[in-house]
């Protein structure tokens, strides 16, 4: 294990270089796999019968995206233990009697003695998919040697193979997407990602998974470095059903759905809000957007006014609508015109996530819309703010959230930020903290008037239309999706690139797959500038 840890340390050093360089960094990245990506790769390489359980260290969000934060995280000692435990369990399953004939391409000469040829064949084939590139000769030799040594000790070929495999599964080459740069022959003096890094970038962007065999073959042949070859692969990935996983991953990241795992409501006040509601709420939003953006090839902006959604009986009980679904499963549901439930930000996944356990928060909801949908930064409140008035929902003087916020916002230090957030969030006040519709709070009729950048509206549907019509809405998606694809925050002079994407997006009637194609086939996605500090790093990392 000493070898893995030392190599991992080097990878972490590379990641720290990127982090230290700050938002101006545009060199090759070292991105830690998310838990979903880890499991997806294991499933892709070994098949669905191999279970990859366990919990890994939490991701961090940076500039609005976990995918960007993935370049700024390391692995702690306990994190290594978790990866190691998972690796051993996976390896044990792969070499088990039930799976070995399917997953290992050869049989050893003897079951209790090393067979380097067979081990080499296995590690070469498996390693190519795990490392997302062919293994170098010394890497392959090392795995074969580990397997042989273990086989001799344990007197079992398959145990030896499992030992070698488990060391691969904790290697930084697997756990981190390590990008490499090379001179760009089309632009002398500039750099681009090497072809395997390019393949990985493409695959993780569109499928949230490692490159498949065809994509690696396109990389190996150099086809991926030609505009035509790249376009062919992008079209293939976009036409695949696996695109759904990629789109789900992006929007889960954009809407902060990782936080839903920790979401709870006061059961005494909101007994209908259960763990199942949380799980269904996330799935509802993802099904809604997949249907609109992929199945219907609809306009991205319609995500904020869409009436067609999918519900379970449990969600129906929260929304107060009848839902007949087979075996408690999912069924399509279309709300009437101008129904307040229209639009994904009027769904439980958004409303409940950006509220407190026992009360709503127009401020949190408005802040989330600004940051997630419009890509506008809302400053954090100062540390010495008195929230007493806002938190006291039993105060007879301020029965509604609007009244409480008006009282709170009389403090000068609060007024500025609340002007940015509250006029949007107050339009969502017809939904309680659990996402259920209401017309009154403490017996007082709710005033859901609001405003977005000068556009006034009288209720939630009005807010939805304003979001739909705001030029910031598609612009934000372009910026954030580009950063997601790149795996890092954009730097100011890249706005010329995103402006071009925006024009193309509008020309394509705001269809998401067209935008993804544009980003995926652009040189900008693969252009890199090696960090100046690279020469100071060990050769292994700089390479």
């Amino acid at each position: 294990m000493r070898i893995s840890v030392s190599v991992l340390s080097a990878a972490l050093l590379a990641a720290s270089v990127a982090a230290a360089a700050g938002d101006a960094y545009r060199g090759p990245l070292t991105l830690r796999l998310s838990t979903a990506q880890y499991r997806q790769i294991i499933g892709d390489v070994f098949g669905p019968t191999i279970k990859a359980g366990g919990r890994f260290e939490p991701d961090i969000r940076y500039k609005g995206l976990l995918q960007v934060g993935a370049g700024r995280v390391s692995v702690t000692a306990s994190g290594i233990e978790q990866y190691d435990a998972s690796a051993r369990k996976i390896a044990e399953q792969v070499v088990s009697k039930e799976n070995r004939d399917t997953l290992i391409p050869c049989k050893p000469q003897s079951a209790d003695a090393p067979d380097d040829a067979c081990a080499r064949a296995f590690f070469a084939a498996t390693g190519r998919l795990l490392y997302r590139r062919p293994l170098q000769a010394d890497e392959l030799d090392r795995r074969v040697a580990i397997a042989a040594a273990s086989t001799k000790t344990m007197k079992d070929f398959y145990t030896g193979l499992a030992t070698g495999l488990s060391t691969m599964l904790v290697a930084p080459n697997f756990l981190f997407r390590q990008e490499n740069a090379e001179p760009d022959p089309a632009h002398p003096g500039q750099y681009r990602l090497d072809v395997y890094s390019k393949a990985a970038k493409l695959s993780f962007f569109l499928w949230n998974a490692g490159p498949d065999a065809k994509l690696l073959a396109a990389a190996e042949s150099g086809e991926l470095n030609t505009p035509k070859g790249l376009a062919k692969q992008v079209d293939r990935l976009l036409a695949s059903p696996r695109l759904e996983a990629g789109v789900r991953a992006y929007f889960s990241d954009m809407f902060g759905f990782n936080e839903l795992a920790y979401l709870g409501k006061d059961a005494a006040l909101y007994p209908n809000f259960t763990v199942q509601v949380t799980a269904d709420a996330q799935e509802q939003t993802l099904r809604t957007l997949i249907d609109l953006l992929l199945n219907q090839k609809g306009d991205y902006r319609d995500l904020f006014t869409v009436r067609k959604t999918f519900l379970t009986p449990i969600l129906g009980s929260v929304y107060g609508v009848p839902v007949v679904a087979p075996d408690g499963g999912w069924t399509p549901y279309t709300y009437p015109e101008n129904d307040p439930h229209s639009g994904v930000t009027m769904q439980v996944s958004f409303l409940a996530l950006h509220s407190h356990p026992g009360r709503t928060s127009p401020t949190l909801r408005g802040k989330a819309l600004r940051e997630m949908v419009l890509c506008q930064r809302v400053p954090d409140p100062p540390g010495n703010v008195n929230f007493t008035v806002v938190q006291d929902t039993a105060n007879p003087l301020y029965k509604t959230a609007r009244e409480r916020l008006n009282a709170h916002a009389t403090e000068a230090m609060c007024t500025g930020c609340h002007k940015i957030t509250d006029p949007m969030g107050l339009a969502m006040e017809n939904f309680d903290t659990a996402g259920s519709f209401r017309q009154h709070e403490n017996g007082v009729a709710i005033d859901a008037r609001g405003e977005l950048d000068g556009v006034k509206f009288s209720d939630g549907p009005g807010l939805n239309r304003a979001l739909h019509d705001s030029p910031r809405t598609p612009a934000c998606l372009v910026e954030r999706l580009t950063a997601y694809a790149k795996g890092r925050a954009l730097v100011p002079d890249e706005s010329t690139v995103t402006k071009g994407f925006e024009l193309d997006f509008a020309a394509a009637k705001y269809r998401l797959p067209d935008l993804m194609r544009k980003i995926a086939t652009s040189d900008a996605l693969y252009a890199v500038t090696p960090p100046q500090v690279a020469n100071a790093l060990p050769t292994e990392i700089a390479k």
Partner: protein
Amino acid sequence: MRVFRQGLRVLVAAGALLVAGAAAAAESKSFVVNWFYMNNYYGGDVDCPEGLNPSSIDFYRREMVRLGYPKAEIDKILDGYPGAGDGRGPWVAIVVKRGNGKDDVYENPTTAPDPGLKVVQGRYAYGFNLDGRGAASPKGFEDPETGEKGVNNELYRLVGCIKSYRGGEGAAKRAAYPDYIWDVLRDRMPAWLVTVTSDNWKDGPATVTFDRALKTVVRDASGANVRLNMTYAIDPDPRGHNVVQGTIKNGVLTTDPANINFIADAFGLTPDLHFTKARVRLKMNADGTLSGVLGGYQAWAAFYWGNAGRAWTGEYLHSQDAVAIYYALKRMADANPDPKTGENRDISSAYAIEAIPAFTVSADDAMKARTGVRASRVP
């Protein structure tokens, strides 16, 4: 702004039956039964001036004395009572055959003599004047909420001094045993549904429909109550379908006498719960829930088997002396005399109903959602 309401949707979704006589502007509101339990009034010590009936260890000891066991042996048999409750305690075999020493006493209660049962002697009980005799009814109670005289509720009189059937005040209103039985039962059997069709609960005619669902209830985060606004498909089995007419006056809906049948589960309740001359009184609470009382006659034999079917487990856990209850049921039954023997076969009773807003749809709609084909078109 949302202008539709749940009831209107239910009417459309369920194709709810609007009965002639109901107001023209009728709308239906559906509910799922959250709690259903014997509505046993609690009036303190005055209810049971002779005291409460003994706990199981005490009436088992009494029976062993009757059977001639020496005190020392009884002490030994009941040492560590009730034990693991797995049927291996030395007392189990004795109490099961405490009649004639060979037959199961729960199946043959007359093999044992009547040990007697202390019964309620108070003034109040929930329920209805089922026999129509009003204040002239010799055994009539007075309803503590409506003030109605001549309330017939002999089942409450019978069980009201048994500890596990003893209600309480306020939040403890549900007696321990009925509470336990329903809490277990509602997760095992299809839900019971109530639909009220009225002119938005204004004074006037109303129709109450009781149905059974195709699936069980779903609980909320509290674990104690049923989820609000769940959707239930109605079981088309006519045995669980009841339509009764009623009138709303001063916000309280009271139905006319009718037979009402519920399909339950053979756990603490009889599989089918038949009420004759039954009446229902319901009120809509401020939070949109429904609460009320169902009173009617039911076959006492069915009630007996609902309890005695659990044999010694029901006895020892809930201190219900099956033999004593059997003789008391026979003795206190107050309706439906057998034409041959003249013995009454039914006993008056009252149950509390607490229901939560729900959506109901027809089995056809449920089938269509599942298969794309309506049930009525399946050969």
